[in-house]
């Protein structure tokens, strides 16, 4: 028995040392292996507030430099599909875009990244007493719309209001019909309007911090197309190991907080897993 116990102790001790050494050398290798390497990463512009701190954390951890571009994914996707531009990692909105890039062989693979959430926004204090999207049909509620903004901010909001049966009244009572969601939100935050349908991420932008309140919108009103975001490695990745390490870091638990702080649901959270199944975000 005594011998067994010693053996077990010796085994655990040796095992722990080996595991520790392994983890240390692994971490050291990860930290140092990408020093002086550079990676070009593009994403939908809406993700910029999440990507910027995540990129910085990755750079600190690995020594690699991330050249990041965030802009309307439709435009970036068009450049990639037409071949006028290249990037090594791409995180687009709209599943269909990732699938098109995969079908053309320009994206090697992709993973679900996160999901956006549409909400009803009101000025701080909710002076009009909005209780939900149905209240946008009230005669006394001034709305602000951005029908000419890029589709996720413009068209998607209109579809939500249409599905909720409030679009006509919301249009009629609009104090502004613009082409920029952020400009519209200034009108709302200043109290010149009572409600708007926006992505939750807009309410988390530093310029609106503490100036807006949000109310949830039932999922049945939300069109599926603009909700999921993916992240994938492109065929132009010069250093696939670095690209993969970057993507894995963005998908890791450590990066979740950046995405959640920016108003997104991370794909690897429990809610994110449910939405992954619901929207079928699978790299087939």
């Amino acid at each position, binding site marked *: 028995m005594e011998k067994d116990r010693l053996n077990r102790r010796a085994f655990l001790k040796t095992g722990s040392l080996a595991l520790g050494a392994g983890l240390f050398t692994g971490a050291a290798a990860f930290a140092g292996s990408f020093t002086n390497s550079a990676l*070009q990463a*593009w994403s939908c*512009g809406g993700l*910029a*507030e999440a990507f*910027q701190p995540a990129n910085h954390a990755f750079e600190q951890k690995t020594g690699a430099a991330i*050249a*990041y*571009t*965030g*802009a*309307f994914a439709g*435009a*970036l996707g*068009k*450049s990639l599909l037409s071949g*006028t*531009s290249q990037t090594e990692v791409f995180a687009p909105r709209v599943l269909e875009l990732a699938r098109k890039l995969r079908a053309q062989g320009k994206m090697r693979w992709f993973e679900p990244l996160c999901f956006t959430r549409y909400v009803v926004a009101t000025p701080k204090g909710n002076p009009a007493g909005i209780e939900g999207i149905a209240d946008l049909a009230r005669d006394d509620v001034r709305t602000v719309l951005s029908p000419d*903004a*890029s589709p996720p901010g413009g068209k998607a909001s209109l579809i939500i209001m249409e599905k909720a049966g409030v679009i006509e009244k919301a249009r009629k009572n609009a104090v*502004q019909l*613009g*082409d*920029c969601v*952020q*400009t519209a*939100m*200034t009108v709302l935050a200043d109290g010149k309007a009572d409600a708007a349908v926006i992505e939750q991420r807009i309410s988390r932008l530093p*310029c609106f911090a503490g100036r807006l309140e949000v109310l949830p919108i039932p999922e049945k009103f939300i069109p599926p197309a603009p909700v999921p975001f993916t992240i994938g490695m492109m065929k132009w990745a010069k250093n696939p190991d670095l690209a993969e390490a970057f993507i894995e870091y963005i998908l890791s638990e450590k990066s979740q907080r950046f995405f959640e702080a920016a108003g997104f649901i991370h794909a690897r959270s429990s809610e994110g897993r449910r939405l992954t199944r619901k929207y079928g975000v699978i790299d087939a």
Partner: protein
Amino acid sequence: MLKTFFSNWKRRIVQIVSLGLIGEWSFYGIFRCPFAVPYIGCGNCPVIQCPGRSLWLWSWILIGGSVLVFGRAFCGWICPGGLVSEILSMGSFFKNKLKQRVSAGLAYGKYFVLTLALYFFFLAQNPRWAIPIRTGDFFKSVGLTFEHADPIWIYKTLFVLAALGLGLAVPMFWCRFLCPTGGAIEILSRFSLFGFLKNARCSDCDQCRRRCHLETRPSEINCVQCGDCKETCKPNAIEWKSPLAPWLNPDTNFGSGQAPSADRTHFL
């Protein structure tokens, strides 16, 4: 040429410091601002890299203050676009060849562009004419902005670049004839407290106009209070004074051959 360029070295130092402080913002306004009218209302701009998001409000307050005190000195001492125009204009081949009447007529172009800018900003709610590249590698982002911009944004940008480039032919073409900010400042500078003025010793020899990179004279249209002309004035007729208090400047001449009591419509 370089000697002349650096003759007013204090102004060059201020211009270089200003270039460091707001030069990047100027560049963003031309090449990456997605809106019809750049540099105004930048607080909510989606281009999160643009330094104008934090600079614009204070900058305009300071510009407004400087106009009330020093007239159009912003154009001559601070504006990075003005510095670029001056550099481009160093080798202009139509220097001092434009007739004064033509030059004075073209100068009204500033007010036309200003009217357009005011219309787009206040009445059309400053429409967005390009896809904002929110953040990205600088030159790639400029390329993407051009690639995905509406044609009207491209025409506007090319118009500004062409007008700046015309400085290679006609000195300071953009600043003298088209800059809407210069136009707004020119109007407000009627109320400025100080400026370079001509006194009664002025003999209309036009030495100052020939020295001036904007081909004007103190207190006349397009004078940017640079002071470059002061040293060239043989009768010592250029003084730093207050145009709002002519009684303090009894020998001041507010325009070509005018009496001290003459009106000051030449400011416009």
